[in-house]
Every structure is written in structure tokens, then in C-alpha cells.
């Protein structure tokens, strides 16, 4: 029935790890999944009440008004086209509508395109930038790449120490300065990476709210300075979003994209209860590739975003 979901399974070699990951992803999105399974599973006809309940579930999963309306309109259209009448037929149609919406976002990061490949991370306070850098370092090392971390958060107390500790745990060099200017720290790191023939530089920045104009100017400067250290860099600007965030995620995507031309998103902390829908809201309002999603505190819990897996987990589909 869900043929499109199986394709990606067959060409994955590391199956046990993948199943563990899918399990955690599913557990993370369980509340939404359970609600939808219950809704579609109890049978009956497709009627306005069903649509209304579906709307409620989508809204409480942070899908947002606009994307919810869009999905429901698509759904109604498909139902008419295919002459569906039974509630349990709706699940697959919804899966397809979601896939159409989310598939364009599933573009994995290719960190081999340049050497060194410079990745800059940005986001609001507490989104999980520094933690994500640790996990990304681990992920990239797993792909046989050498990694260097730049402690560009010179504002928050002990952000530098936090990154250095990550570096020590993963045996990765961290370039840091006591105090100082974030742009200068990252400039040094990019130069060091060139000299040492490192494959990937991960540059941390301080968290900032998008309403702080001077901080948004500061991060623009950081990006300009990186380009001075290495023309063409940064090759990737990742915006880290906390999956707990509601519709404000859209403002964040827009404001950071305006300032930095964001090339990819990292969605962290998906392992709560009623989350994940915000990806659909972003896909609708301001589509930017989702490079990674995180569903746990473990070092391996940050993985590339695969639309099929995500939807299967969200809808509680079994493979």
C-alpha cells in the first residue's frame, strides 16, 4: 500500500542502526501519529467532521493555519478525484500530499564539494547550535572527514568551554579565543583549516533573536569575514531551529534567510510529544532544504532528513 515508503529501505546497508533511528523518530512524533491512526483507523465515511478533526490534529502539531488549509484543500481535491469515501483510505492520500510538500526539502548536505568545506551555524538562543555542532562533527567524522570547530559564540558564558568539551570528547581541534570578536575567531579557524588540510570547518555563532538588529548585523559581518578568509565560503549556512518552536519558526527562517541566505535547516529536539508539523509550515511559506533532524540527546541522534521516513513516523505508518 505504501510502496513509495519502501524504496529507501532497500538501499540502506546499515539496517539495524536505521531501524533504531526510525524507532526514535516514530517515538518522537508519536502523539501526532497516534491521533491520526486513531482518526483514520476507526472507519466510517469521509465527512466534514473528519476533516475538522484532521484540521485540529494538524494545528496542534504546529503545522500552522496556512499549511493546514493547503493540505486540507489538497486532500479534498484528491478525494474527489479518486472518488474516495472511506476514512481509512485517507491516510495514504494524506501521506502523498505531505510527501509532495516535504520531498523538495529533502536535499542531503554534500560536504565534499569544497575543501575545506565551511559550514556556519546560526539560530536563536537555546535552539541547540552548539550541541548540533558536536553531533555534526561526529556524523562527518563517520563519513571519513577531518573536522575543525570554530568557537564563534563569544557572548554566552561558557559557550567556548562547551564546544571545547565536545571537541575533546570527539578528538576534534577547536579554535577558540578568550573573549574577542566572533568574526576573528572564525577567520582564524578557516585559515587554520586551510593550513592543516582539514575537510570541514564547523563555525558556531552566538544565539540571537531576530529582533535584535545590531546582532543580525554582526552575524552578516561574520559571514562576510569568512568569505575574506576563503573566497566562496561559507559553503553552507545552517539555521538551527528548535522543534518546540511554534509559528515563530517561520519568522526565524525569514529573518535569518534575509540576513544570511540560509542554505539549509537543522531541526533539533524532535523527541518531544506533539511536534514536527512546523516543517510543513516552512515548506509552505519559505522552503529551505532541511539538512538534518535531531531526535535525542545521543551523539548519533542527528541524521539527514528523509521525507519518506519522516512522514511514515508522523503518520504512524508501518513499513
Amino acid at each position, binding site marked *: 500500500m505504501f510502496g513509495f515508503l519502501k524504496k529507501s529501505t532497500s538501499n540502506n546497508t546499515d539496517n539495524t542502526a536505521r531501524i533504531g533511528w526510525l524507532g526514535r523518530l516514530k517515538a518522537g512524533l508519536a502523539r501526532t501519529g497516534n491521533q491520526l491512526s486513531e482518526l483514520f483507523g476507526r472507519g466510517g465515511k469521509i465527512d466534514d467532521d473528519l476533516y475538522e478533526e484532521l484540521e485540529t490534529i494538524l494545528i496542534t502539531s504546529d503545522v500552522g493555519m496556512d499549511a493546514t488549509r493547503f493540505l486540507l484543500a489538497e486532500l479534498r481535491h484528491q478525494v474527489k478525484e479518486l472518488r474516495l469515501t472511506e476514512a481509512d483510505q485517507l491516510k495514504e492520500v494524506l501521506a502523498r500530499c505531505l510527501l509532495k510538500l516535504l520531498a523538495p526539502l529533502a536535499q542531503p548536505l554534500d560536504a565534499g564539494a569544497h575543501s575545506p568545506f565551511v559550514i556556519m551555524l546560526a539560530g536563536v*538562543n*537555546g535552539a*541547540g547550535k552548539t550541541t548540533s555542532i558536536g553531533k555534526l562533527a561526529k556524523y562527518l567524522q563517520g563519513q571519513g572527514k577531518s573536522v575543525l570547530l570554530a568557537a564563534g559564540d563569544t557572548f554566552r558564558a561558557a559557550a567556548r568551554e562547551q564546544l571545547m568539551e565536545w571537541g575533546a570528547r570527539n578528538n576534534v581541534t577547536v579554535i577558540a579565543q578568550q573573549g574577542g570578536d566572533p568574526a576573528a575567531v572564525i577567520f582564524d579557524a578557516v585559515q587554520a583549516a586551510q593550513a592543516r588540510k582539514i575537510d570541514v570547518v564547523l563555525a558556531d555563532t552566538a544565539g540571537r*533573536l531576530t529582533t535584535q*538588529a545590531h546582532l543580525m548585523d554582526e552575524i552578516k559581518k561574520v559571514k562576510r569575514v569568512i568569505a575574506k578568509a576563503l573566497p566562496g565560503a561559507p559553503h553552507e549556512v545552517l539555521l538551527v531551529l528548535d522543534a518546540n518552536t*511554534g509559528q515563530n519558526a517561520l519568522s526565524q527562517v525569514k529573518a535569518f534567510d534575509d540576513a544570511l541566505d540560509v542554505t539549509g535547516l537543522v531541526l533539533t529536539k524532535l523527541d*518531544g510529544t*506533539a511536534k514536527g508539523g512546523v516543517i510543513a509550515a516552512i515548506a509552505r511559506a519559505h522552503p529551505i532544504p532541511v539538512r538534518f533532524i535531531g531526535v535525542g540527546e545521543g551523539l548519533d541522534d542527528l541524521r539527514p532528513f528523509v521525507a519518506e521516513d519522516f512522514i511514515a513516523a508522523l503518520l504512524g505508518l508501518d513499513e
Partner: protein
Amino acid sequence: MLDNLTQRLSGVIKNLRGQARLTESNIQDALREVRMALLEADVALPVVKEFTTQVKEAALGIEVVGNLNPGQALIGVVHRELTKLMGAANVGINLSTVPPAVILMAGLQGAGKTTTSGKLAKLLREQQKKKVLLVSCDVYRPAAIEQLRAVAEQLGIDFYASDVSQKPVDIALAAHDYAKKHHHDILIVDTAGRLAVDEAMMAEIKQLHAALKPIETLFVVDAMTGQDAVNTAKVFGEALPLTGVILTKLDGDARGGAALSVRHITGKPIKFVGVSEKMTGLEAFHPERMASRVLGMGDVLSLIEEAHREVDQAEAEKLAKKIKKGDGFDLNDFKMQIVQMRKMGGVSALMDKLPAQLSQAAAGSKVDDKAINRIEGIINSMTPAERAKPEIIKASRKRRIAAGAGVQVMHVNQLLNQFEQTQKMMKMFSKGGMAKMMRGMKGMLPGMGR
């Protein structure tokens, strides 16, 4: 982009103002808008439903009593219900216990517990003259303890050193002993961020609570939180006898949807709100003001409070005297106003607190922080004599000033024109009072682009 709650509701109320009479059907329209606006502002759905029902009941009741001005009646109802939902008056920290009074901080990862612990310590020390001890029980996140230590050192607050090899409960109890021995009035216990669904971690914080018997257990929640705020608040509220909520990152552009949800679910008062990255950025929560802000009435009271705190009183009085005299208002004063405006967070921060209609009007006049910076640059390029007597600035001086500030002569002219208008208005103010001043208001906004 995303309409904020204030603008959305302003629109609804504007529509209603045009209506001669409040009927069941136009309440429906208005309520649908209210519902939508609240959902888009991340107020959780169950809370939204209950709120709109309450408003409807209250509004229909009022219609019977008197339908002279239905629009105003509905605004009143929404405002009252919103205030009610956000809790009664502003509640401070309860310290009435045998010292040390223990304050336990709990919340999700990245909510801002550590920063808030530092801000709270500073606030209690300064406003209540208390001796505070900070301790971190976060043995999980790398350098979390170091972060609190650095914050404590920066603020000059006592810090009880802990180590990641210790158990959180042991750390907390040792810190409690230490606080007792050293006569601290308050012990603030920072904890690791945890998810409501993480049973082991929730058990740990229950254990901490049982061991410490804190007088205050504060739930720290990010103002940007989405629909999940209800679930998280519910689980934390069930696991711990919470005594209050602190809402962080309210200086962003997400407007307190989570505040409504969390307040509604836990039933606990929001005691403080985090409004800045700076260590002074923790303020008492005022439900009435928040409701006003949501309704597009603007947060003028906060603005006045802030002005009081940030603006140099002596300078302000000097200026007031000058204005009274009607002359002598020169470019130095003009610049002083700009500097003071910057102290309050710049134009954008001020706009945030203005009523929605006013801030929209102001946004149309292209006033932004950049324009303000440019004005300051131009004034800085003038000699003291020029600042005191702008009328001596003629063509050659203008060229020099423009070159110095890196702008066109045109911009210098614009500034001088604006200054002249402001000066005129100041004279009007001294002679004719407020009414004339309001008429002259247009010239007050120093927009460069017009």
C-alpha cells in the same frame, strides 16, 4: 509575513467598530478572527477553544444589558477575559520561610534556565537586598556548570562549585548546607534541561524537589514555544508542585502565545518575563499590560517604566527646562535624545511597545535604527559651535560635515530641516501646550527618507 496577535486583533476590532450593532453573526466573524490570531500566535488549541467560548458567553450577556456601543463592549470583554486568563495581579517571589529560601528552576533544554537563574539572583539581590547563592545541578550538558559559574562571577553573586561526577541530589543538598552555614537568604538551584517525556529525568527532578523542599519551583518556558507548550506544562505541572512560571525571550517577535497556554494549563502565575540578553533583562509580569499589548492598546506602561530606568534623569530635567524657555534647544539636545532612545533598545524596541495603529503609522515613515545612526554620525561631524548654533551652517560647512559623516550634502540638509521643525515644535509646546504639539507631531519623527 506572519501577522502578530496585536495587528490581527486590531483588524477585527476595526471591523467591529464599523458595525452599528453586535449580532450573533458578526460576533462569529470576530471570534473566528480571534481564534485564528491566537492559533497563529501559538496559543494552544484547547486554550483557544475555551477562551473563545468564554468571550462569546460574556459578550452575548452584555448585549442584553445595553447595545449602545457593541464594538467597545466586545473589546472590553476580550480584554477582560484575556487578562483573566493570564492571571491576576503580578505575583512576586515568596521568601517567607526559614532561610535559605530554595528556588528550584525547571524546564526544557534551551528554555533559558541558566541565564534566568543569574538574572533572578541579581534581581533579588538588588530589589530585596538578599544574599543569594547559585548552584548548578546540570551534570549532563558540557560546560553547563561552567556557564553558571561565569554568570555568577560576572554578577558578583556567590556560587557553589559542583562537579559533573556528583549526583544532582548530592550537589543540591551540599549547596543547601553551605548556604545555611554562610547565612545566605536564598539558594537558587539551576537544573539540567529535560523533556517531559523523559521519565528518568522527570524522576530525577522529583527527587531533587523532595530533597530540597523548595519554597518556589519555577517553570522556565520559552515564549516562542508552539502547541506543545500545553503538553510540556501539563507533565511538569503534574510531576512538580510548581509555584510559578518564568517566560523567557519575550524580546523576540513571538508574542506570548505560550504564556496563555502555560498559564491556563498549570494555573500558576507568570512571575517574571525575560526581555533582554542583558543580565538586567528580567521584569515582573503584568497580565493587564500583556492583555493590552495583545489587543493593540500598546504596552505604554512598560515603555514609561523603561524610560525611567534608562534615561538620565538630570539630562531629562535640563532638557525640560530648555523646552519651557522655548529656545536654546540645539543639536546637542537633539543628539542626546537619540542617545537616550538607543539606550532603550533603539527605534525597533520602542515601536514594539506602541499601540498597533501608531506603530504602523511610524513604520510607514521609514524611521529605522539606520536612519538614526546616520543622524548621529552627521551631528558628530559638527563642531561644538555648529551644534549650539545650527544656523551658522552654510554651504561650505555642509560639504565638510557631509564628507566627515560619509553622507551626501542632501542628508545634512534633511537633518537641519528636521531639526528646525523640531525646534519650532518645542516653541509651540512652550507656548500652546499639548494640542499644538500633537498637530506638529509629524515633524517629530526623524525619518531621513522622506
